[in-house]
C-alpha cells in the first residue's frame, strides 16, 4: 500500500503543479477584483506556445535553454490572451463571465488553428521534456525523501518558489496590501490615491502569465504533446481557488486534494489493485469530487468583496 503511494506520489506532484500555478494566477486576478473564468483558455495558450516554441527550436538549441525559453513563450502567450480579458473587463466594464468564456473559446480555436500550420494534425509533440532527477542528498531521507525529492522536475520547485513568493508578496508588502484592497473596496483604494485600473491590470496579466506557465509546465513534464485541450484543468484550478477560499495556503491544499484524486484516476489502469473498479468511475471521479468540494466550500464564500464587479 505504502509502496503504491510512493510510486504514484511523484505523479501527483507533477499533475498538481500546473493546477497550482494556474490557480495562483487566478488568485491574483480575483484578489484584484476581476473574476477570471478564462483560466482554461489561458492555460491552453501557454500549453500551445511552449509546444510551438520547443518544436521550432528543439533541434537547434541546447535542450535546457530550449525548455526555459519555451516556458517563457508560454508565459508571454498567456499574458497576451489575458490582455484581451483585462481590456474588456477593466476598461470596457464588460460582463466578466462572458469575456472569460470568450477567452476560453478563442484560445481553443486559435491554438488548434495555428498548430495545424505546423503539423497538419493539430497536435504538436515535443521530443523531450524535463528530465526528472533525484535531488542529491535529501532524496535519501527516509519517508520524506522518496516522496518529495526523488524523481522530481525542477519546474515543480520553480512553481513552489513562485507560490511562496506570492504569499509573501500578497500579505507582507505594501503592494500586496493595495492589490487585495482593490478586490475588497476599490473606492477606498482610489481615495488613497492609488490607481485601481493599474493594479487590476497587474492582477489579470499575472493570471495570464502564471496560467500560461502552468500550461507550459504541463507540456514539459507529463504531457509531452500539445493536443488542443487541457481537459478542464483550468476549471479545476478555479474550483481549487474557491475551495481554498482565495488564500495561498488553501489553494495549495485544494490543488493537491484534486491532484491526488485525478492522478489516481489516470494511473488506475496500470495499478492492478485498482483494476477491478470500472474505469468510468475513475474518469468522472475528479469532477464529482470537485462538485462535492464546492458544495462544502461555497456556502460561506469569502470571495473578495468587489470580485467580478466592474469599477
Amino acid at each position: 500500500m505504502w509502496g503504491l503511494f510512493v510510486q504514484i506520489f511523484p505523479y501527483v506532484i507533477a499533475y498538481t503543479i500546473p493546477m497550482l500555478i494556474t490557480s495562483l494566477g487566478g488568485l491574483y486576478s480575483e484578489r484584484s477584483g476581476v473574476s477570471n473564468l478564462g483560466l482554461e483558455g489561458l492555460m491552453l495558450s501557454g500549453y500551445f506556445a511552449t509546444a510551438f516554441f520547443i518544436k521550432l527550436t528543439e533541434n537547434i538549441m541546447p535542450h535546457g535553454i530550449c525548455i526555459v525559453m519555451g516556458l517563457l513563450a508560454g508565459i508571454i502567450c498567456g499574458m497576451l490572451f489575458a490582455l484581451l480579458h483585462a481590456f474588456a473587463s477593466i476598461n470596457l466594464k464588460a460582463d466578466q463571465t462572458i469575456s472569460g468564456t470568450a477567452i476560453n473559446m478563442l484560445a481553443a480555436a486559435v491554438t488548434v488553428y495555428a498548430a495545424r500550420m505546423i503539423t497538419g494534425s493539430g497536435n504538436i509533440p515535443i521530443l523531450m521534456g524535463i528530465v526528472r532527477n533525484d535531488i542529491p542528498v535529501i532524496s535519501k531521507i527516509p519517508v520524506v525523501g522518496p516522496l518529495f525529492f526523488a524523481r522530481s522536475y525542477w519546474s515543480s520547485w520553480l512553481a513552489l518558489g513562485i507560490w511562496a513568493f506570492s504569499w509573501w508578496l500578497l500579505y507582507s508588502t505594501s503592494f500586496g496590501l493595495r492589490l487585495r484592497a482593490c478586490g475588497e473596496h476599490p473606492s477606498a483604494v482610489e481615495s488613497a490615491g492609488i490607481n485601481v485600473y493599474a493594479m487590476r491590470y497587474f492582477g489579470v496579466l499575472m493570471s495570464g502569465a502564471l496560467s500560461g506557465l502552468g500550461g507550459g509546465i504541463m507540456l514539459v513534464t507529463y504531457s509531452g504533446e500539445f493536443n488542443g485541450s487541457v481537459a478542464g484543468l483550468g476549471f479545476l484550478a478555479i474550483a481549487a481557488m474557491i475551495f481554498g477560499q482565495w488564500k495561498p495556503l488553501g489553494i495549495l491544499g485544494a490543488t493537491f486534494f484534486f491532484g491526488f484524486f485525478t492522478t489516481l484516476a489516470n494511473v488506475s489502469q496500470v495499478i492492478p489493485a485498482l483494476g477491478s473498479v470500472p474505469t468510468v468511475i475513475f474518469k468522472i471521479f475528479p469532477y464529482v469530487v470537485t462538485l462535492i468540494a464546492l458544495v462544502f466550500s461555497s456556502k460561506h464564500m469569502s470571495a473578495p468583496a468587489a470580485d467580478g464587479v466592474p469599477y
Partner: protein
Amino acid sequence: MDSNYVIEMLHIRKEFPGIIANDDITLQIKEGEIHAILGENGAGKSTLMSILFGLYRPDRGTIKVRGQEVTIKNPNDATRLGIGMVHQHFQLVHNFTVTENIILGKEDGFILHRKEAALKIKKLSEKYGLNIAPDMKIEDISVGMQQRVEILKMLYRDANILIFDEPTAVLTPQEIDDLMQIMRNLVKEGKSIILITHKLNEIKAAADRCTVIRRGKMIDVVDVASTSMQDMAAMMVGRPVSFKVDKAQAQPGRPVLELKNLCVMNTKNVPGVKNFNLTVHAGEIVGIAGVDGNGQSELVEAITGLVPVQSGQIIINGTDAAHLTIRRRNELGLGHIPEDRQKRGIVPIESISDNIAIKEFYRPPFSRYGILDDGYMRRYAQNVVDHFDVRSGEGIKSPAGKLSGGNQQKMIVGREIAMNPELLIAVQPTRGLDVGAIEYIHKQIVAHRDKGNAVLLVSLELDEIFNLSDRIAVISGGELMNIVYTSETNEHAVGLMMAGVRQQEVR
C-alpha cells in the same frame, strides 16, 4: 482679507450629463474655523468637496490654497496640499485591520511594518483624543470607532484642512457631542474644518460660518451665531419650511402586529434581536429609534420574512407569521418600504410598470391562470404613478433604474401604500431625499395611518422619528430599552436609551 483664507474655491462649475451640479459656486474658508456647507440632498455639496479632494475636476473655476492657485488632479495632490476627507460612506476595507486601513497608500516602504505603524497610530490617536484599537478588523468595531479611523487616516497624512461629509448620520446624540468636541480639539491644534451637512442643529452647535447651497448655486455665506435656524432652512430650501408634520392625534385600535419574545440571529451567528416584545395598533405610528447596527435591520428582516426567526412569535392580524413565507405575510396585510432601495426595493432594468406589480403579479386581477393581464398592470401602474407623483422620462415604460432617487422612493412608497397594507413597515423611508420629497412621503405615511392602518417606522434620523411617531420604541444591543409616548419624552432622553442606559418604563 485674502491672506486669511486657507482654501478658496472660486466660481466653480461642474456639469454631469443632464445636470449642473455646481453652478458658479464660490467658497472661502478661513484658517482655524469650522465652516459648514448647508444644502439639501442633491444640492451639490458632495460634488464640490469631491472636487476639492481631487476625485473630480471642475469644468470652470480656480482653487487656491493659502493664496496660491493649485490644480488638484487626484486625491494624492489633495493629500499633499494637506486636504483630507472623511467620506459619508466610509472608505474602509472591512476585513483589514484599523492599522492596515490607515496606512493603505502611505505604507512607508515596500515591506509592511505593521507593528511600527500601529504604535505611531496609537500615539497619534492619543494626541487628538480619538480612542481606537489598531489591531482590530473594521468589521468588528463600532461605527463611531470606524469614523475615528477615517479621521485618523487624514491626520496620519498631516492633513490641515479636514472635510467631514455628513458625519453624524450614523451616530447617537452622545457620539455626536463627542464628535463636536473632537472637532473643537482639532481646531485648537490649528486645523481648519469644512462640515457638509443638512442638519441645522449641528451647524448651530459647531460651526462658525455657513455657506448655503441650493440646486447647485451658492445662496449666501452667513455667520452662524447671528442667523436663526429658520432663516438658514429657508435659504436651503428656497421657501419657508416647517419641520413639523401636520398630524392629528392618533386613534389607536386593535393590535395589528404583536412581537412576543422575538429572538433573531444576525449574520455573524450571534443574537441580533433578543427577547423583543412590541405591539403596534391600528391607527398608530410606532417609531423604532436606535443607533445603526443595534438590531433594527435584523428585526425588520425577521418581521418581513427575509431572515429566519430563532424563537418567539410574530403575530400579524392574529396569525403567527414567524414561519410563513414572505408572500404569505404580504397576503396577511404586510407592506414593506425597504432600507436599501437599490438592493431590495427596485429591479433597475425592468419597467416602472413591472416594478409596481412585483408583489402581486401572481394573482388576479394582475394575472389569471398564470397568464399576465398586461392591460390591468399598466392601468394600475399609471394610477400609482399619478397618485404618488412619480416622474420619469418615458412614463411607466421607463426602466426603474433611470429614475432619480426621490422618484424611485416615491414609486416604492406608492407601490406599498397602494396595496393598502394593514401593517406598513417603513425603514429609512426618506434617506437621501430632498426636503420636498421628504415632506411628501411623510404626509403619505401619516395619511396611511389615518385610514386606520398600523405603521412601524424605523429610522436613523431622530428628527423623523419624533416628527412622525405616536410612540417611540428604543432598541439598543438588540433589546427593547423602552417604549414611550412621543409627547412625553425628548431627544436627549431617547439618546441616552439608544446608548444603552435603561430607564423606568414610561408607557
